[in-house]
């Protein structure tokens, strides 16, 4: 697959560097990601792939002694936004840029409540709308058939792969413009992995996807472009 050159840029970073205390993980990164595409981020373990994704929803900010230099922008509703602008609403940013973590992290509540949680946060309370959204999101993540009869069970009773799809469904409920996926198929067998890959290809129509993956064949199948984080992470002391 080749990159569709006509797509506009959706996400970009300018001279981005990142430090955990003295550990310099991301070094002067300036990249651009086109919209409606899947961009794979690859590199050896510990190179800062997960860290890189957290730049775009500012999730690293609660980590003590973490520090960022440079700038990061995303285009939301066709307007460029500096992610680190003081005036930006953090909840709003995070609803526009959904994230799925490396290890599935269902909240300690029922399956239904997990999926409807983002709706509750953004003030959608009309029961029918919520029900429809939950069903739609679960169907999108190919989980509906497996859980439709046990929506009130604790989400933590699901298998690892089901939890992973639950987290994907949960990230999809708010129709994010950007999806940040940290090895979303690492807990899945080949069959479910295939399902998720199909899902990502269909989501590409509406979303810009950043995908961390260790599987080269997966990247070859679905990614439009590849960004490699590699090399000399050093200890600047």
């Amino acid at each position, binding site marked *: 697959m080749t990159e569709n050159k006509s797509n506009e840029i959706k996400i970009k970073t300018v001279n981005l560097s990142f430090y955990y205390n003295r550990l310099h993980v991301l070094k002067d990164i300036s990249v651009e990601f086109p919209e409606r595409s899947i961009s794979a981020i690859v590199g050896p373990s510990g190179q800062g792939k997960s860290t890189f994704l957290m730049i775009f929803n500012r999730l690293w900010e609660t980590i*003590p002694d973490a520090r960022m230099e440079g700038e990061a922008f995303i285009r939301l509703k066709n307007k460029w936004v500096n992610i680190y602008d003081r005036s930006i609403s*953090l*909840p709003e940013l995070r609803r526009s840029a*959904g994230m799925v*973590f490396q290890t599935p992290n269902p909240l*300690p509540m029922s399956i239904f409540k997990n999926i409807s*949680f983002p709706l509750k*946060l*953004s003030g959608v309370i009309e029961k029918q709308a919520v029900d429809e959204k939950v069903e739609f999101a679960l169907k999108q993540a190919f989980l509906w058939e497996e859980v439709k009869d046990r929506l009130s069970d604790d989400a933590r009773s699901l298998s690892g792969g089901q939890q992973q799809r639950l*987290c994907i469904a949960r990230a999809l409920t708010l129709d994010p413009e950007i999806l940040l996926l940290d090895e979303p198929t690492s807990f899945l067998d080949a069959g479910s992995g295939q399902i998720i890959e199909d899902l990502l290809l269909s989501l590409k129509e509406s979303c810009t996807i950043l995908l961390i993956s260790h599987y080269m064949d997966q990247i070859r199948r679905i990614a439009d472009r590849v960004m490699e984080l590699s090399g000399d992470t050093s200890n600047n002391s």
Partner: protein
Amino acid sequence: MKRECFAETGFLGAAVLSASLTALILIFMLFLGFPLFRGGCFFTLLTTPWNPDKGLFGIYPMLAGTLSIVFLSLCWAFPLSLGASALISVIAPTGFAKFCKKTVQMLTGIPTVIYGFVGVFLLVPFIREMFASGSGMSILSASLMLSMVISPTMILIFTDTFESIPASYSAAADALGASPVQKLLYVILPYSRQGIFAGLILSVGRAMGDTLIALMLAGNAVAVPGSILDSARTLTAHIALVIAADFDSIEFKTIFAAGLVLYVFTTSLILLVRIIGGMGMKNR
């Protein structure tokens, strides 16, 4: 090897000693209070008023005094502590939160008698002026000051509970765009139910066991209080006052009844905390 053995025996000895002390205290009180049980008047004591002139030595007024002061102090301290710990562990920016926590930790170290002092010289006159009633030594004054005494510990317990929430829950809520208050309401509080309850019960035990505040601020009148502006005497204050006065009278016997009631109350509270703690382990 030898050192390990030595330490092991030492720890075992310390554990046995403290456990047997607890049991010994109970036996001691049962022994000294035995005349009360033999006469079958232990339970009558709990329900009758105190009127030495008529030969009535019931501790019912003190029981009522203790319960009302403890209950009221929790009414002040619980919301305050919950709010303060929410501020410290969720809402306030890191620097300010650290400062608040340090302050609270410092407060736990202030001797109770200092709080009593402050109460006598600041709170009591204020209550007296404000409500224009009596001396100002009342259930209200004592419970307000007592809530100051128990709050710091309660805040630290709640803060610990809030901060023990698994990082994955916290990250999930954050990444879905929960504001700090939403995260508190929908994720942290439900998760912390048991910790909050345990902290609450431990505070009840502390409030009940506190002697000085009630002694200095509640007025120590031996009558069943009718309103929160009335003066009252707690079980602990009663024990302190009687012990200071005489050594061999029927009055003196009643302090064993008072002691036993306190002992039973606090022990059952601790047991309750244990049971809740056990349930918490299973649920997570």
